[in-house]
C-alpha cells in the first residue's frame, strides 16, 4: 500500500481551520511545531500532485441559498456509460458524478448531484440534463433532512499509521 502523502503531524496541522489573520499559515505552523515555509510547501506540493484537490473556503450550501439537494440517478446502458458520465461531468451545474453498482429495486448505475435554490429550479436543470444526455430512465431523489454534513477527518485515527 502506498505511503500516505502527509505525515500525521503535517496532516493534523493542515486539517485545522485556517485562522483569519495576516499570517495564517505561520499561526497554523507554530501551533503544530512546524515552520511556515514547510507548511506552505506541503500545501503547494499537495496541490501539484493532486493529493489536495483544492485549498480554500468550504461553504454551507444552504446558507448561500442552495436549498434543494438533488441526487439524480440514471440507468445508462453499459456501452454508453463513458459518454454519459463525461457529458454530465462537463456540466458546471453537476458537482458530483460517479458510476456505482445497481442493487435490488434500483437499476440505476450513474449518480449525479445538483444543488439549486428550489426543487423547481433543480427539476428544470434535471430536465435539461436528461435531454442532453439522452437517457430516459432516471430518478430524482431529494434530501428531506440533513442528519450530518461534515468534512472528513484524516488525522487522529488511532493506530492507523506509525508516523
Amino acid at each position: 500500500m502506498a505511503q500516505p502523502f502527509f505525515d500525521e503531524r503535517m496532516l493534523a496541522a493542515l486539517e485545522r481551520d485556517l485562522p483569519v489573520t495576516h499570517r495564517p499559515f505561520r499561526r497554523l505552523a507554530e501551533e503544530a511545531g512546524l515552520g511556515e515555509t514547510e507548511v506552505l510547501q506541503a500545501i503547494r506540493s499537495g496541490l501539484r500532485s493532486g493529493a489536495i484537490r483544492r485549498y480554500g473556503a468550504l461553504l454551507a450550501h444552504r446558507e448561500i441559498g442552495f436549498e434543494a439537494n438533488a441526487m439524480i440517478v440514471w440507468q445508462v446502458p453499459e456501452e454508453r456509460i463513458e459518454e454519459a458520465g463525461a457529458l454530465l461531468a462537463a456540466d458546471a451545474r453537476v458537482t458530483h458524478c460517479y458510476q456505482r453498482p445497481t442493487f435490488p429495486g434500483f437499476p440505476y448505475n450513474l449518480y449525479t448531484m445538483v444543488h439549486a435554490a428550489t426543487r423547481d429550479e433543480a427539476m428544470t436543470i434535471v430536465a435539461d440534463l436528461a435531454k442532453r444526455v439522452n437517457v430516459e430512465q432516471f430518478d430524482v431523489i431529494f434530501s428531506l433532512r440533513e442528519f450530518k454534513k461534515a468534512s472528513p477527518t484524516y488525522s487522529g485515527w488511532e493506530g492507523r499509521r506509525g508516523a
Partner: protein
Amino acid sequence: MAEELSRPALDALDAQLLNALQADFSIEPAPFAALAEKLGVPESVVIRRVEALKEAGVIRKIGPVLEPGRMGFVTLLVAMKVAPDQVEAVGRQVSEFQAVTHNYQRDHAYNLWFTMVAPSQEEAERVFKKAAALPGVEAAYPLPALRRFKVSVRFAVKERKGAGGA
C-alpha cells in the same frame, strides 16, 4: 418562508469574497492581503468580512479538500431502507460514526443515504455492518464508486438581500 428570514444577507463584496475564497486562495504567507489587493479593499476589511461570514455559518471552514485515496482512505456510499418510524433514530446513530461525513434522509423507498471516508476497508465494513444491524433497517447496500467522473463542490455565490430587512 420563516426560514428565509434567518438567512444572512450577502452584499456584492461578500459574494466576490466567497467566490474568490473557493477558487483562487493564494498559498503564500499573507493570503488575505493578496485577496484584498485583488478586490481593491484593505486587508482589514477582508479579515473582518471573512470572520463575519464564518460566524454566520456561511463559511464552514478554510482548509484543504484532500484526495481520500492519496491519504490511504476509502470512501463508500450506503443506501438503506429504514422503517419510517425509526428513520430519525437510525439517522442519528449513523451520524455518530466518525467515518460518516454526509447523512441524509431522502424522498425514496431507500430513505437513508450516507457517505463514509474511512481509514481502511475494515473500518468501512465495520461501520456498514453496524449501521445495517440497527433496529428498523430493512435493507442496506454498499455502493462503492466504480468510477469517478467528477467531484467539484464549488458554488457560484450571488449577492442576496436579507429578507429580514437587516
